[in-house]
């Protein structure tokens, strides 16, 4: 006999990950670990110019080299593939179209020119060096100022200018608020270009079965089904002629979503050559030509009262979108603008957002596409504090939404509910002991040490439902699909349209199924990444995995449990399944307030359902197969507050992070071990990006950061341990109260670190308005400056 335990039994358990075993033993199976007999190797010839016409391509010498099977260029591949058109119905966004490989001109250094296929990778790379390309160099635009200048060279000659996208919005009367304000505070934020740098670069392998007319495409990708749709369409194949298989993936962070031109070329070549073709990009290609992210120039103007309250706020963003559109050009800036005001009460708000094409690698979403949001918002609050001589914490408290304010409709119409920004802020302020820090800071300054403390509150948009897509004009949806199958033995298999790149799905999603079905997590296997096995879902992006994917699996598990109990009731000669439940794969009955084991288990029901269907209740079909789709609310939000303490050395400009505390409220969690790992990883990525990482182009559009000695990523020596305060306010609209998380850490880290630097810089009368916060930049700010004795009134 067992007594009812309230609340979930499977989710929320800190189960170690089941995927670890293979990964720790060197038995993982990443793309390059898949042996494909007879596979040819592709390598790409890339442009050395930022912008140039392709005058001629002479592949004769390359094609005659031993082992070389084919050399193809843009015109060849255009015969086998269709173009990509990006033309969603979004006002102010110009439609763009690209061929699979460029035909007439290249648009950035590293752009594609030709593809060489040979019997091994060494020979393919030898031959690529022998492809002779004649270019006519064109003027290049290497930043948005140059791109938007009168008479600038056109990146895309089908467009009237390089202004790809322009939208504006206004709510309330911002101009009136400016006129009536105690002060108007202006601040600027320059976010530098970064790239995802997954530790496994991109790659793929295409196997064309000419007899069956079927393509099997192996690729590490976050969204297998949407990728298959794209791949089939652009090869003019049916979706039933393409199988996408994602093996273990060495990190994605948003880089592995789009169907890239290299991948489509490899698939087309496998079909044309009727031989398997595989491709692995090298690190330089990954850094220069895979996908970049983040670059934006941003300004705010805030009308404020004497106590620091914001009466009205204006935002301007100019995104540097690079040379090609793999996503709608307004998409990233729009999310920043939509959620900018986050945890603060700001009723009068206006934004103006632009995206410009430049002669640089195209950009896409990178873990927290809206990463700069919280830096811009809390950085604006810090600018207000500096200008008005107020304490930054006091300015936050004066503006912050309080528990009684929720649900709260933001000026943009977005609804915030079930979030706790004032609680996370106060928790982090208490944990880092803000008041005593201020005393220590004064004492340290007296000794010539410059400590800084930065705060940053985050409201993270996590799960986007189909209604969000519809409202944004973006084709696609935010729903997710799942199936659960109980096998004749009672073993449980399940699948969902997500694909993991390190998130521990095989463990945490099994917990969601187990919770819904009423079995131990160890009895559930989750299969992901094979489009012949998984249901058509939207994949892994944003922070949708737990809510959309976990939610769908949980609901599907519930559906399965209801069905199993209906059969069990019949087996137990009961009229109804109402007083029955499945727990640990046993059917239990509620008798006098206690759950009592019956003689029946899941395996007994399964045996009946498969092998003795005549014994099933009337109207119940044989087998135990379940599926469903789940469409989350238009948007779910998590929230957090970050506090970062640093020591800034004015002599060298070096920043040492002394302490990092975060309070995060991400609702119910599937697996706290996995969630903690995601929190640590997200903060680390934010700090690394704000401190070190920089995709650097010179004025001519040459990329100078093509190795990991130039594109610096934080090592264990630059990062601190993270102190995490956990909060779990459930979302009332989602299954189990899930909210999603894993991007907010990036948002908060970027802001908290920069705010800490500015706190340390305050006595010098300077502030940092750009990243990365590299030592030479900090030194440049401080040159000729001496510290003043007091920083705030």
């Amino acid at each position: 006999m067992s007594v009812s335990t309230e609340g979930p039994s499977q989710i929320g358990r800190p189960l170690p990950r089941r995927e670890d075993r293979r990964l720790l033993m060197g038995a993982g199976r990443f793309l390059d670990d898949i042996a494909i007999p007879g596979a040819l190797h592709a390598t790409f010839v890339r442009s050395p110019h930022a912008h140039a016409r392709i005058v001629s391509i002479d592949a004769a010498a390359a094609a005659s080299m031993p082992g070389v099977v084919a050399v193809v260029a843009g015109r060849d591949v255009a015969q086998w593939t269709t173009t990509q058109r990006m033309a969603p119905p979004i006002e102010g966004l110009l439609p763009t179209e690209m061929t699979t490989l460029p035909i007439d001109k290249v648009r950035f250094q590293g752009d594609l020119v030709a593809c060489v296929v040979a019997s091994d990778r060494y020979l393919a790379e030898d031959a690529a060096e022998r492809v002779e390309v004649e270019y006519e160099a064109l003027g290049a635009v290497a930043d948005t100022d140059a791109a938007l200048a009168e008479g600038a060279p056109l990146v895309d000659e089908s467009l009237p200018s390089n202004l790809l996208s322009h939208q504006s919005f206004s709510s309330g009367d911002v101009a009136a608020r400016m006129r009536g304000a105690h002060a108007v505070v202006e601040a600027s934020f320059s976010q530098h270009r970064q790239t995802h740098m997954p530790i496994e670069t991109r790659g793929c392998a295409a196997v064309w079965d000419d007899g069956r007319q079927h393509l099997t495409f192996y690729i590490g990708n976050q969204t297998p089904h949407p990728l298959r749709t794209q791949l089939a369409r652009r090869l003019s194949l049916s979706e039933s002629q393409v199988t996408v298989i994602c093996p273990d993936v060495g990190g994605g962070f948003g880089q592995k979503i789009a169907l890239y031109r290299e991948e489509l070329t490899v698939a087309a070549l496998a079909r044309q050559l009727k031989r398997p073709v595989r491709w692995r990009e090298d690190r330089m290609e990954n850094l220069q030509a895979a996908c970049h992210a983040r670059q934006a120039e941003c300004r705010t103007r805030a009308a404020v009262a004497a106590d620091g309250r914001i009466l009205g706020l204006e935002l301007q963003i100019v995104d540097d979108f690079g040379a090609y559109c793999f996503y709608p050009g307004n998409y990233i800036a729009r999310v920043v603008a939509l959620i900018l005001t986050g945890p603060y009460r700001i009723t009068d708000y206006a934004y103006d957002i632009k995206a410009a094409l430049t002669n640089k690698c195209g950009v896409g979403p990178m873990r927290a596409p809206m990463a700069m949001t919280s830096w811009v918002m809390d950085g604006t609050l810090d600018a207000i504090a500096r200008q008005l001589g107020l304490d930054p914490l006091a300015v936050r408290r004066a503006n912050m939404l309080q528990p009684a304010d929720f649900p709260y409709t933001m000026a943009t119409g977005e609804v915030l509910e079930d979030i706790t920004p004032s609680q996370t802020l106060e928790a982090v302020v208490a944990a880092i002991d803000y008041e005593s820090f201020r005393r220590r800071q004064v004492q340290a300054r007296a000794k010539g040490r410059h400590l800084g403390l930065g705060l940053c509150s985050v409201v993270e948009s996590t799960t986007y439902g189909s209604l969000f897509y519809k409202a944004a004009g973006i084709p696609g949806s935010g729903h997710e699909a799942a199936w659960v199958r109980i096998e004749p033995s009672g073993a449980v298999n399940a699948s969902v349209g997500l694909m993991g790149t390190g998130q521990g799905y095989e463990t945490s999603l099994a917990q969601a199924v187990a919770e819904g079905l009423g079995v131990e997590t160890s009895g559930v296997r989750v299969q992901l990444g094979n489009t012949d096995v998984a249901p058509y879902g939207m994949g892994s992006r944003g922070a949708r995995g737990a809510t959309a994917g976990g939610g769908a699996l949980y609901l599907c598990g519930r559906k399965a449990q209801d069905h199993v109990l209906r059969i069990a009731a019949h087996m137990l000669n009961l009229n109804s399944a109402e007083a029955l439940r499945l727990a640990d794969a046993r059917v239990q009955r509620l008798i006098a307030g206690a759950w009592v084991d019956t003689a029946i288990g899941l395996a007994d029901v399964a045996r009946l359902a498969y092998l003795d269907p005549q014994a099933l209740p009337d109207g119940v079909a044989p087998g135990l197969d379940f599926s469903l789709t789940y469409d989350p609310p238009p948007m779910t939000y998590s929230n957090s507050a970050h506090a970062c303490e640093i020591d800034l050395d004015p002599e060298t400009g070096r920043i040492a992070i002394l302490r990092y505390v975060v309070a995060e409220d991400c609702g119910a969690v599937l697996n706290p071990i996995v969630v903690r790992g995601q929190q640590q990883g997200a903060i680390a990525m934010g700090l690394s990006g704000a401190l070190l990482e920089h995709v650097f182009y010179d004025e001519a559009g040459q990329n100078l950061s093509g190795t990991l000695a130039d594109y610096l990523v934080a090592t264990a020596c630059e990062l601190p341990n993270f102190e995490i305060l956990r909060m779990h306010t459930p979302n009332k609209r989602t299954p189990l109260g899930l909210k999603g998380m894993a991007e907010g850490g990036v948002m908060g880290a970027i802001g908290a670190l920069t705010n800490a630097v500015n706190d340390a810089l305050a006595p010098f009368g300077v502030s940092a308005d750009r990243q990365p916060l590299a030592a030479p930049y900090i030194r440049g700010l401080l040159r000729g400056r001496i510290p003043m004795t007091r920083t705030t009134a």
Partner: protein
Amino acid sequence: MNERTPIILSVNGVDHEVSVAPRRLLSDALRDDLGLTGTHVGCEHGACGACTVLIDDRPARSCLTFAIQMEGHEITTIEAVARDGAFSPLQQAMHEEHGLQCGFCTPGVIMTFEAYLRDNPDPSEEDIREVLSGNLCRCTGYQNIVAAVKKAAAVLRESRS
């Protein structure tokens, strides 16, 4: 450049006859000629550390080593760390402390510290971070890897005492 030379590669205690071109990387020979795909290649320029193996018990970048130079040397890869299917103390600690997410850098991290902990049974956190700085991890932020190395060191000290 592409002419092949037969050599003996001694890997995980087993001698393998392979025929390699002089420029063939050890990482490629291990993965593609011997099928030992646990060694991962992350950057091919010695920066990321994913390809770390032991050459005569010392950590080395297999992407910066030519296979043809390895005759007469003993190479150890991730496949030889577990014994009879059981985790080493470091692998066990990495599992318990959630020291890996995507797992691509993990073999390199493990090879680095299997060697390090043999010679340094009681490292400080600063020591561990210094050594770990030769291995890039994009997922974890390193905190749990550091915790795992500390735990493994304690287990190893216990087992030796």
